[in-house]
């Protein structure tokens, strides 16, 4: 890896740095695992070397002059101060270099933006602070959330290898197929970035962007949200698992079956009664995953940004119950409160609302059941 060597050499020019650090530090752009990412890497290195050469010539001339043309050496200053020929020359040469650079860049760009003839299409929806993946050709969709435990972030547990770059459910794509990504957002602008694919596309609310990747090697590829999207922008990673087409087919079939079963089971779930203990423990789990980022684990929210649930009128008065179910199901327009009705199952919704109405000293004693959630959902449909 001569390029890496080159960078390491550059780094050594900083006093002492080379000795301080080990050898595992990434220094350069990844070459990635797609043809496009390799082309992007080559463009990056080409323009980098061009800059190095220009820098060497210009700084070389300057430092030569600084060493030789100094008053301390007793030189008399020359008085020349213009030359149209020289000016034209150093205008024309950069233009030629730039044209030479623009040609391969244009070719790569046109290839990157050609999203036609895709084999698989996946709709990626960002929201604060998670990704939702929906396979347009298959009845499969799911949310993907940060899996790093909060205790690692707050330094109470040692950090593990993929700290902040791990999710509960990664996106799975087939190798050797052109996979098209459609990106959009439910709230603010996010940006879906996987460096190994050289794909970074903004997720704009109300609009759909396109990009694509054709991954040859099975593997796990990690990235992050790249556009500031609020408080937990640093905590919404992207993980993509590339599987062989056969493995992908069996995986997606399994997922489709599971999700169909889960949907069918919703009716059965609606009829089930949870005990208070069961509701509270499931509710706490769901709360940590979906609600605590804004309303905080303590239920106290962030003053002036995210409202408190602890002691709030809605969550301590019996009369607030229906409003509570409504806001969790449908969100609140014009605020960061999302509609969780489509993100969580009936049982999870019932449990988390129960939890919010009974935790942190909110002691309504209310036990919300899946049937209540379904009734609320049905009520909307009428």
């Amino acid at each position: 890896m001569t390029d890496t060597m080159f960078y390491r050499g550059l780094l050594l020019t900083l006093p002492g740095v080379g000795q301080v650090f080990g050898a595992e530090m990434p220094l350069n752009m990844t070459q990635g695992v797609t043809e496009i990412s390799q082309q992007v890497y080559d463009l990056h290195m080409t323009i980098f070397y061009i800059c190095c050469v220009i820098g060497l010539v210009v700084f070389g001339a300057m430092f030569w002059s600084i060493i030789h043309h100094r008053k301390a050496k007793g030189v008399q200053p020359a008085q020349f101060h213009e030359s149209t020929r020289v000016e034209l020359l150093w205008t024309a040469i950069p233009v030629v270099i730039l044209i030479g650079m623009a040609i391969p860049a244009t070719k790569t760009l046109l290839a990157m933006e050609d999203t036609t003839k895709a084999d698989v299409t996946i709709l990626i929806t960002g929201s604060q602070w998670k990704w939702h993946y929906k396979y347009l050709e298959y009845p499969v969709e799911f949310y993907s959330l940060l899996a790093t435990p909060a205790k690692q972030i707050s330094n109470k547990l040692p950090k593990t290898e993929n700290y902040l770059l791990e999710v509960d459910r990664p996106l799975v794509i087939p190798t050797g197929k052109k996979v098209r990504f459609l990106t959009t957002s439910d709230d603010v602008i996010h940006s879906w970035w996987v460096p190994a694919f050289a794909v970074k596309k903004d997720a704009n609310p109300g609009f759909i962007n396109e990009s694509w990747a054709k991954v040859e090697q099975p593997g796990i590829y990690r990235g992050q949200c790249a556009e500031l999207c609020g408080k937990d922008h640093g905590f919404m990673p992207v993980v993509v698992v590339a599987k062989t087409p056969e493995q992908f087919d069996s995986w997606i079939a399994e997922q489709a079956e599971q999700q169909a079963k889960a949907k069918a089971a919703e009716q059965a779930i609606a009829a089930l009664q949870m005990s208070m203990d069961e509701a509270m423990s499931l509710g706490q789990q769901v709360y940590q995953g979906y609600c605590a980022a804004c309303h905080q684990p303590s239920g106290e929210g962030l003053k002036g940004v995210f409202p408190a649930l602890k002691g709030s009128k809605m969550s301590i008065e019996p009369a607030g119950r229906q409003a509570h179910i409504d806001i969790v199901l449908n969100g609140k327009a014009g605020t960061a409160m999302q509609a969780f009705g489509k993100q969580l199952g009936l049982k999870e919704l019932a449990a988390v609302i129960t939890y919010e109405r009974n935790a942190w000293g909110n002691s309504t004693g209310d036990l919300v059941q899946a049937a209540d959630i379904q009734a609320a959902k049905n009520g909307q449909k009428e």
Partner: protein
Amino acid sequence: MSIVTSGHHADEHHHSAPPAGFKRWLYTTNHKDIGTMYLLFALAMFFIGGAMAMVIRAELFQPGLQLVDPNFFNQMTTVHGLIMVFGAVMPAFTGLANWLIPMMIGAPDMALPRMNNWSFWILPFAFSILLMSLFMEGGGPAFGWTFYAPLSTTYSNDSTALFVFSVHIMGISSIMGAINVIVTIFNMRAPGMKWMKMPLFVWTWLITAFLLIAVMPVLAGVVTMVLTDKYFGTSFFDAAGGGDPVLFQHIFWFFGHPEVYIMILPAFGIISSIVPTFARKPLFGYASMVYATSSIALLSFLVWAHHMFTTGMPVFAELFFMYCTMLIAVPTGVKVFNWVATMWRGAMTFEIPMMFAIAFIVLFTIGGFSGLMLAITPADFQYHDTYFVVAHFHYVLVTGAVFSIIAAAYYWLPKWTGYMYNETLARWHFWCSLISVNVLFFPMHFVGLAGMPRRIPDYALQFADFNALISIGGFAFGLSQLLFLLVVYKCVQGGEKASAQVWEGAEGLEWQLSSPPPYHSFTTPPEVK
């Protein structure tokens, strides 16, 4: 071309000494007093914005959340950016313009002195509003200095209103400052100072002033649209009401890119003044410098969307903005080549202003190189919104704009105060700054290329060692600037007397005045050969 008649000057003779005390500063219409206030204000803001950078670097010293919560971290990055751009760099250049333009063109003062007073005195209010918003419930603005909608509209707290009003005031101040510069340069040049005889600092500021007048109203427009989207039910940036969040970015960057040049063109003027002085040789390619500056200014209106390559533009728009952006490298290159040619076969000495100027040329050019890399759209998809971009714009703004301002301060301080600065302290300041600024910003290239996004309060483990190093560089750079404070303080207090000429090779009207210069610079216009 001189419109100034001796009659005009007669009015101004009757108060040649400044009134004493607080009123002198509050009521002053004198370009030197106002220039001093601008410069001191910028210095104060540089330290406040710098303190915020220290908070950022302290949090990023190690992975995990240690000192601040992510919401406050976002407020720090946002307000650090706003303060440094609008509070430190821009007022510092305006302060230099106030001090120097009348002296360089042979005028007694700025053309519109009362407006000059007002354009300064509204600034402290603007920044008080911005800083006070940090103490509101929910904190201050946390959406980045670029305040992308809808994060700054639907999803922001009520400090947004204060943010909008403070930006309005900053904009008004800048526009008034720009009008003053233009009117002064057009009307008050000494007889014989033709356009192509003006010092380059005057030229670059004239072009900057036109850029300011062109784009500050655009900024005012976009913050107003944010305000009405948030509070008055409009949907400029909300797709649900027929708007488009990407429209925000187009308007913002139509302001934002010329803004970048507003922060660097005066720096070009400063370096073009300093290098010939210490090379004892006239500036190489004066005319081409003027044309290059003008071309950069014109091109700056055609490249805004290179900040937006990942927003999903049509591919032909991406190509257009890539080509235009690459083209900017040509006039910028011409400037660097001209500076090197000015040094070539000169008789150089290396006083502190020259040291900072040389550091500027090398480090600004490194920032230019990374800018050229960022122009390559396919590669930009990888660089965009990473620390590579952070490295790029800090090289052009800190080792570019800020180093040029420091160079200017050392270069003209003896003229302003009448005393030489402390050479030993100044050398310490230079070398500490030079080393620490590179420990601070150079490794950011590496973490950016390796995939670390910007504006995150916590990061994956492979970035940890570099971030610790960057933070150490940051603290060292921050501390080094206290030396600058000390140098300036001591120089104002006294020291070795400076001659009128100050530097052996200095040329220009400002060096014909005594050090310090009289309260009203040229009461009778000097003759320019």
